[in-house]
């Protein structure tokens, strides 16, 4: 554990912003979001859980992965791999946990997802511990916690007498801390002020057994709008779609980009197949899939649960769909 002062922390952040892309929580028109910052002055150090997770910096909402240039019979293919180095400062432990969930599919399967892998290898995660659990948070129930360093490279904890305690977790974390000027420690890491009540997490078999209980899922899902908020704010949702777009056609040369963009299983057209059939035609069937994926399919297929308890989907749902309410109802059955 190292200790430093506010000024020295900011100097270190300014240094990081010179060396790599520095991503940090920042205020954007009244919203707290992870954004690229030019200097430490833009970085929020007292903030709640940012409204969107940090996944967009490793699994971008939209990414060109291939460029194609066709000139007569000649076709040139160019794979586009991300090469930027980035430091994600201020991520919450749940954000890092979410990336560990995505790793199970995108990194630890054969073959890995090359685009995600490139981002991942070029990213350092410097987390800042939460001083309390916010509205909707239930990370503790799902294997995480407000001060959990497990999936981070460095954990930062504000001190009781000012300053910050920094705990390197991985060799990457040790390396990134080399530029930090430390100070004589004062006080201790601030304790977590408030924990939310625990939420029961039922085993995958229990979820699976409920699949056919249509009334149960209708009751929870009939008010769902089939928008994509919950999946897009989620640090662990990772569905995407691919398309080719023509960017230029002139004097015999056609240039095409292959794009991958986020997709969402809650969306009405997500499961539509050729010919127009949709095996998940209703909102509650789609919502059931989202929950089954998180607590049944994903853990059974890839290991970790597809939920980290960050609570973002709960606070951002405009019709009060509450994953913890469903979890409690499943556990009670």
């Amino acid at each position, binding site marked *: 554990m190292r200790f430093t002062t506010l000024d020295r922390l900011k100097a270190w952040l300014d240094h990081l912003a010179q060396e790599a892309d520095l991503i940090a929580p920042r205020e954007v028109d*009244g919203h707290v979001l992870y954004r690229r910052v030019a200097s430490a002055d833009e970085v929020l150090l007292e903030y709640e859980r940012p*409204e969107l997770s940090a996944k967009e910096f490793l699994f971008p909402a939209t990414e060109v992965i291939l460029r194609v240039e066709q000139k007569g019979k000649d076709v040139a293919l160019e794979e586009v791999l991300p090469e930027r180095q980035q430091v994600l400062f201020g991520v919450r432990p749940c954000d890092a946990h979410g990336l560990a969930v995505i790793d199970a599919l995108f990194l630890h399967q054969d073959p890995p997802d090359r685009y995600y892998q490139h981002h991942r290898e070029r990213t350092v995660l410097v987390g800042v511990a939460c001083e309390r659990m916010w509205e909707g948070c239930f990370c503790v129930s799902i294997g995480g916690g407000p001060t959990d360093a497990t999936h981070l490279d460095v954990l930062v904890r504000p001190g009781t007498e000012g300053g910050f305690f920094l705990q390197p977790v991985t060799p990457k974390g040790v390396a990134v801390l080399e530029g930090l000027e430390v100070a004589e420690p004062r006080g201790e890491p601030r304790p977590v002020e408030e924990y939310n009540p625990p939420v029961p997490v039922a085993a995958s078999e229990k979820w699976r057994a409920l699949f056919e209980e249509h009334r149960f899922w209708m009751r929870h899902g009939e008010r769902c709008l089939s928008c994509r*908020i919950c999946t897009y704010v989620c640090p662990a949702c990772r569905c995407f779609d691919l398309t080719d777009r023509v960017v230029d056609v002139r004097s015999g040369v056609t240039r095409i980009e292959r794009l991958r963009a986020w997709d969402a299983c809650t969306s009405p057209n997500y499961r539509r197949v050729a010919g127009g059939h949709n095996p998940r035609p*209703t*909102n509650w069937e789609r919502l059931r899939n989202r929950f089954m994926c998180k607590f049944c399919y994903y853990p059974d297929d890839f290991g970790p649960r597809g939920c980290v308890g960050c609570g973002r989907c709960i606070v951002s749902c*405009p019709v009060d769909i*509450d994953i913890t309410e469903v979890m409690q109802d499943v556990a009670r059955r």
Partner: protein
Amino acid sequence: MSDIETLTHQLREEARRLLSEKRVDCVMGYEVGPRGRIRPAFLYDPAEADHLVWGPGCVHNLVTYLHNKKKPRRRGEEPPRVAVVVKPCDSRALNILFAERQVERERVFVIGMVCEGVVGPDGRPAAKCGRCTDRTPVVYDVLLGNPPSVEPAPDDWSDLARIEAMTSAERLAFWLRQFDRCIRCYACRQVCPGCYCPTCAFERDDSLWVDMGIEVPQKYVFHLGRAFHLAGRCVECDECERVCPMGLPLSLLNRCLVREIEALYGHRAGRQEALTPMLFELGPEGSPI
């Protein structure tokens, strides 16, 4: 009993009656969730009638859920009959759906609520209520509550002033900044009673206009396109703005068009059961239309 308690009691009795007499298969109203938040509720059993609540937290426009009730539950059956609780702004969306032949009038039992405004997420009166001139729904089968004697103030369009004060370059910069925050979650479209195309023009796999990328150009085209598709059809319920997780001031886009359409055609969407004149009325050469 306070007015709210009386209204809630009357609402529950009405729902109980409709379900027990089998006048409808489902009552769409509001309930309180475990976190104390008010949310849409779908009742099928008269014993559930006491779940219903009424109050200034009943913000959702439930008319949008009628689109989920257009098909029969089982093949060969009739589509379900439903009762829906509406505020005055919500009720105007009913007229749109009736005029556009989306829902048959006789399949819907409309529980109209006299409304003195709902609240926003901050607990203060919602912006739309400050300019609303209606206290009773424009269409209903039963009306609950007594209309207040005080006339509401007329709509002065003051919400558009900040946009109009900008130069066109400032306005472009303002909207690009807003669209930059958009995450293309489509919540604005999904919640809108007027957005019911089976495949949205902006989500087609073979769309000529916009691909699936979540970048500013696609978001720009989507939001402006959606606003135009709602010209003369938007009932100003502001649900798009309420549900937006990124706080885009979408009502400004819609309201600009509402005012244009009213000035050109004397048409305010949903006041009567009528189609938008934007697509169906052509003026003589040289006329402003």
